[in-house]
């Protein structure tokens, strides 16, 4: 494991700053020192912004100096996935086509974190335009899993997961379209949360699939995830799809007992194809929640098996539209091609995009093209309704749904790159919740006998973040005594 002397939590940073055991500047410097040491091996960061980070740290230190009340994330070192816009800091989306792109504005989530005192350290590696489940589709090389460096960290937010898992950042933002927060969280052994669709503003998030994309946190504890969720959630005038619902104080309900809560166990998530060690840990995890007084309810969610097929129709269709904007005119790469406008478009896109992005643009254009629209796109939207209905009906009977996050622990680099379909199936337990728009968290659930992390996934109903966090927190507290090491 990439050595980290200490994994900070938000509370630990606050306590150390208040007690003047460390300054925000020293904490920032320590993190950059660790990044300098570990990043050449892990490749989790694509860009660092030390000027911005130290300026923010100095502001926090000045507040400490004059005894001002510190904001919630004062001095907390945070990493941001490179699909989220940061003013004056290169934002590549893991793509050659945006290699030199410098956004003229900050995403709302970045503004909100900095307003809460967070120190943004830099931008994290990811699959190109968030398309992938292993981080091997980055144009800037794969990220290595800090727990097992010959293995993938998961994807697409692999850099954010690795940064927090290795202690290079205390928290990180990722994005989840089909599992891209939860799956790398599981594979790197840290909590990772996907909020309800619309709960967190997407302003400044460079779009992959607009009906699915969400931003959420990676942290070292469930409590830290609750803190960050409370800060980034809520209506934003700059994102008309952001929900109007009030944001509850997630920390208030975090420690409430889970006795009597009904936990649904859908049989479709426990079929063949699951690694036996993953199955074992998830069963132990469910057992430990039963001991806390949760009532398990066996569920049927019959459309689960169709979710990957639906997802790869709708995702590629939306992505092919969203990525039409990269044409060499307004930003990013331009290749002259044969000198005509069309030739310039074709050459720019053909050379600027990597293999997976082109594959998905072609598939998405195909399913939307005349003659195939009804057979694929419309059919996909209809079955999406059925997948969502499974969740709606389940939440009439239960308070939360428990499943594994990933059928397998971290796989070896290169193991799945030649077979796109095998890679797509890595998301088999996560895409369902993406299609249904519900919130979900992956919380560490011990390790396999080979020492690889396993993630337990908890889904809640729309805007049920508080419940999801409460159950995850209860589980995190009893995990060790259940015999699940972390």
């Amino acid at each position, binding site marked *: 494991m990439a050595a980290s002397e200490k994994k900070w939590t938000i509370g630990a940073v606050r306590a150390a700053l208040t007690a003047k055991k460390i300054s925000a500047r020293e904490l920032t410097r320590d993190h950059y020192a660790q990044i300098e040491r570990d990043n050449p091996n892990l490749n989790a960061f694509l860009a660092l912004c030390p000027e911005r980070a130290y300026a923010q740290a100095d502001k926090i230190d000045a507040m400490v100096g004059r005894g001002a009340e510190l904001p919630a994330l004062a001095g907390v070192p945070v990493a941001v996935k490179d699909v989220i816009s940061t003013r004056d800091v290169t934002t590549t989306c893991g793509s050659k086509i945006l290699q030199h792109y410098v956004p003229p504005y900050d995403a709302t989530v970045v503004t909100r974190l900095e307003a809460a005192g967070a120190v943004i350290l830099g931008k994290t590696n990811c699959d190109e335009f968030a398309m992938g489940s292993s981080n091997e589709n980055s144009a800037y090389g794969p990220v290595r899993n800090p727990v097992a460096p010959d293995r993938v960290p998961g994807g697409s937010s692999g850099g954010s997961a690795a940064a927090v898992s290795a202690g290079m950042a205390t928290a990180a933002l990722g994005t989840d379209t089909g599992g891209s927060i939860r799956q790398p969280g599981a594979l790197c052994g840290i909590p990772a949360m996907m909020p309800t669709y619309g709960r967190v503003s997407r302003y400044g998030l460079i779009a992959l699939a607009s009906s699915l994309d969400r931003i959420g946190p990676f942290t070292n504890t469930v409590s830290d995830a609750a803190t960050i969720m409370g800060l980034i959630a809520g209506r934003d005038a700059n994102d008309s799809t952001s929900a109007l619902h009030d944001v509850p104080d997630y920390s208030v309900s975090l420690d409430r007992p889970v006795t009597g809560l009904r936990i649904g166990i859908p049989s479709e998530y426990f079929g063949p194809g699951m690694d036996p060690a993953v199955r074992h840990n998830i069963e132990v995890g469910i057992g430990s929640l039963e001991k806390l007084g949760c009532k398990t309810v066996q569920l049927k969610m019959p459309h689960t098996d169709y979710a990957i097929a639906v997802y790869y129709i709708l995702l590629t269709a939306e992505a092919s539209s969203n990525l039409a904007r990269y044409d060499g005119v307004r930003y990013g790469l331009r290749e002259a091609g044969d000198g005509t406008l069309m030739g310039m478009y074709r050459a720019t896109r053909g050379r600027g995009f990597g293999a997976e992005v082109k594959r998905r643009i*072609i598939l998405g254009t195909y399913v939307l093209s005349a003659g195939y629209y009804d057979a694929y796109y419309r059919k996909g939207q209809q079955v999406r309704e059925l997948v969502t209905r499974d969740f709606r009906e389940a939440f009439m009977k239960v308070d939360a749904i428990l499943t594994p996050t990933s059928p397998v622990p971290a796989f070896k680099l290169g193991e799945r790159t030649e077979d796109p379909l095998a890679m797509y199936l890595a998301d088999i337990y996560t895409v369902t919740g993406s299609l249904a728009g519900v919130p979900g968290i992956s919380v560490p659930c011990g390790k396999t006998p080979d020492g690889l992390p396993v993630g337990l996934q908890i889904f809640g109903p729309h805007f049920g973040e508080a419940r999801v966090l409460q159950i995850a927190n209860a589980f995190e507290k009893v995990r060790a005594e259940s015999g699940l090491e972390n």
Partner: protein
Amino acid sequence: MKITREEVLKVAELAHLELTEAEVTKYQQQLDSILEYIAKLNAVDTSKVEPMAQVLAETNVVNPAMREDVVIPCDVAKDVLTQAPDADGKYFKVPKVIER
């Protein structure tokens, strides 16, 4: 085969993507197996199911009202144009489109 070589070429043209010969062959094979997999949806009876475009439409929480139509200054042209591969004054420059 679910997808022909000609269809791959046609779709690449629609998507403005230059592909190499090797890419065309590879994508045809890979897309064929993906479409083969997606065909499992044909087993689902959707004759009475409305297509879902928006996940939270029914709860009416997303975008329930148009915002007030007020003019907000948006003086960002200079910042935006710094990112253009080729710009001239207030304009993006592109290869000539219209022949005289």
